[in-house]
């Protein structure tokens, strides 16, 4: 049975690796400027994790094969180097490996979080609420009107609680149920939640960030491929969590201008 066990471990290890190696369910192609850094980090980690995984399982299997069913007279042997050897090996190899991953990974993280949005990034505000995303563009005045929670009126489509009568900045705000952005233009996404925790996740953009009640959070990114993508909520927010999504359309600048004009007309 021991030998069968060893073989099973090897088979399972290889079978586990196959879908990864064959790209059976791969990450979608990245469409963002900061994405390649993340993808490179992911590939490096996959290589190191994959090698560690396969090596450990194979050696485990080998030792189970070799050292089961030994005769009563067989001698107990000590692994060369003993415990200290293994400790040193682990500290050196694994230590270097993880420190390298950590150090190089800060670049990708910094690209997302430690660089401020550029001055001409286009501001868009996204509001998350049970169970929909709404997007707001500041309009020609470039200013967002104030949000008044007590004025929120979904029936009359005042999703953000804007004071359209008294607030000049609010009058030209454009509210939409889907998000359109021009390609190759940096976006400064201001995140606001109406009720509780949600999250903004676009796989292709390599972007994910929670909405936190009480905190003004923001993200910035630049999409560099035209197309239609899905924004989904990844923070459990209630019974409609699975259905909470919106489309992100990355368009050419001209198409975007047309789109925005249409939205403005529909307000």
């Amino acid at each position, binding site marked *: *049975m021991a030998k069968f*066990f060893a073989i099973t471990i090897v088979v399972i290890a290889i079978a*586990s690796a196959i*879908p*990864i190696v064959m790209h*059976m*369910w*791969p990450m979608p192609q990245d469409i963002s400027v900061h994405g390649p850094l*993340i993808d490179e*980090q992911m590939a490096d980690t996959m290589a*190191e994790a*994959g090698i560690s995984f396969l090596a*450990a*399982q194979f050696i*485990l299997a080998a030792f189970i094969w070799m*050292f*089961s*069913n030994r005769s009563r007279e067989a001698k*107990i*042997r*000590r*692994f060369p180097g003993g*415990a200290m050897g*293994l400790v040193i090996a*682990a500290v050196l190899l694994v*230590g270097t490996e*993880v*420190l390298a*991953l*950590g150090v190089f*990974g800060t670049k990708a993280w910094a690209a997302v979080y430690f660089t401020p949005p550029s001055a001409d990034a286009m501001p868009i505000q996204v509001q998350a609420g*049970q169970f929909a995303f709404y997007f707001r563009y500041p309009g020609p005045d470039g200013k967002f009107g104030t*949000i008044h929670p007590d004025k*929120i009126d*979904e029936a009359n489509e005042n999703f953000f*609680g804007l004071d359209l009568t008294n607030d000049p900045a609010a009058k030209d705000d454009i509210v939409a149920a889907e998000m359109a952005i021009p390609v190759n233009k940096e976006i400064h996404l201001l995140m606001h939640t*109406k*009720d*509780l*925790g949600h*999250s903004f996740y676009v*796989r292709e953009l*390599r972007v*994910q*960030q*929670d909405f*936190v*009640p009480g*905190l003004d*959070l923001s993200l910035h990114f630049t999409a560099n491929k035209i197309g239609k993508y*899905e924004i989904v909520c*990844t*923070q*459990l927010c*209630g*019974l409609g*969590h*699975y*259905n909470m*999504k919106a489309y992100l359309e990355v368009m050419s600048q001209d198409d975007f201008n047309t789109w925005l004009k249409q939205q403005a007309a529909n307000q």
Partner: protein
Amino acid sequence: MHDMSTHPAQHHHTAPTSFIRKHVFSLDHKVIGKQYYGLALIAVYIGMALSWLMRLHLGWTNLAIPGLQWLSKTGAPGGVMTPEYYLQLMTMHGTIMVFFVLTTAPFAGFGNFFLPIQVGAEDMPFPRFNMMSFWITFVAFIILMTAFFVGDGPPLSGWTAYVPLSAIGAAAGPGQGLGQILWAASIATFCIGQLLGSLNFITTTLDLRTRGMTLMRMPLTVWAWFITSCMGLTAFAVLLPACILLILDHVAGTSFFIASGLVVNGALVPHSGGSTLLWQHLFWFFGHPEVYIAIVPGVGIVSHVLITNMRRPLLSSKVLIGCMATLAFLSYVVYGHHMFVSGMNPFSGLVFSFPTLIITIPATIIVLIWIGSLYGSKIRINSASLFALGFISMFVSGGVSGFFLAQPSLDIYLHGTYFVVGHFHMVMAVAALFGIFTGTYFWFGKMFGRMMNETLGKIHFWLTFVGTYAIFMPFHYLGFAGNVRRYQAFVDDYLQPLIPVHRYITVAALVTGAAQLIFLYNLIHSRFWGPIAPENPWEATSLEWITTSPPPFDNFGGKHIEVFHDPYQYGIEGSTNDYVMQNSPEQIHTERDEK
């Protein structure tokens, strides 16, 4: 440190005579251990049934599950699960499994039974606190179960109960009123039970060791339980205040966690100023040590059983102990890796990520010590050793996905996906479960006086080993594809091609689940009709094997035990057997003294 205890445990009580005193309100640590194990057994089958319901729904969203409507008329009209009921069952699945199975069986169950015996004590120093700790845990379980049957059912906020979803009450969703309060009350009660248990474990280890039982002569299981109880003491002591504050936000109108200006269900929430992230900090400060509380006893049990079945000690017990202690210590400074995309200061993200990566090192050393000790050993294959070896495989598989999640830049993509779910199921749930199985097959004879059936055990092992890989490996692929977790159905465009994978997983889960019924049958059948267990069926060396199976009520029949050796004297050439019992005065010297 007080290396040698001269404290024979003052036996505070004489042998009980009445049924109630013997089997219900017992002060005997062995009975308490069995009660904990029994509670965990009930909990794990409930938790597993919940997972079947979840998986059926995930594979076939509109499936009418016959009988489900009797559990909840509103949650499953005609047997078809509503979206909210999926989340409610999911919340209960996680809560039951983490608290009442993984914290209970390996630690409170086996630890209560074997810790005093393995250190040569007659019982624990505070038997009444110990009895209370079990019954408080039991009450906590009952409180949690009642959530199924009240109003609109159990909470749907997940076992993590993030605020404000879990704090603002019924307006946030079904089950968020009374259900959430019962959840918080149950967990708070559970904390108290665990604190009393940890008190006994720590004091027993420090104070009640028998003559000659120095700290370094304690078996690795004792070290594991001791380290775990130190974690439990500090971690549960933080979760308790958090739950109290959560309950106050619900019933007393306070605003510890609820921010201002929230509009839920068309109405302004009458709370303001609270901190959303405060809950996450408090919860994960508890939550990360908790996952080590779940796994460290398994590390101890697996080491203990492996050594016996390899017929040689580990390359270095000291190193293994040091690694367990390091894991425990580091577990407090890594918790922020659950919060990389939470809106926490991004600089904190880097600060938490480094110790998270470093924690790989002691975990790796543990695996290497095991594998290195297998080299040149004489492995015996039986149900217990199969599960112990399987633990190593599972721990490796579950651990390597941690490489990814420890890095905040990769967590941007993987957070909230099935990759996380795969990681923690493999490294914590399945591995810890393997640890529980290892302990069960190894110690059942000692605990109940009859041996488990080996053939059934091996069948159980094969189906479970292959089955759990079949279930949880695909979770990682789903995660790489961006499959979001905690969804009751997959409506997004990009998720459609993944639904066949979910259906496959469901089938694997049902088959593997059915295999667990073999284990249940084996337990029950062996308990009454299994072959009588000898005193030392495994030719093992630690103190539990010098007494009868099961042990008498004072563990050693009044004998005062004296210990002369380290616990794992195997492979001794100068001796008649290939092992020497810990209390044998036989003079020996082994090369492992080079540690």
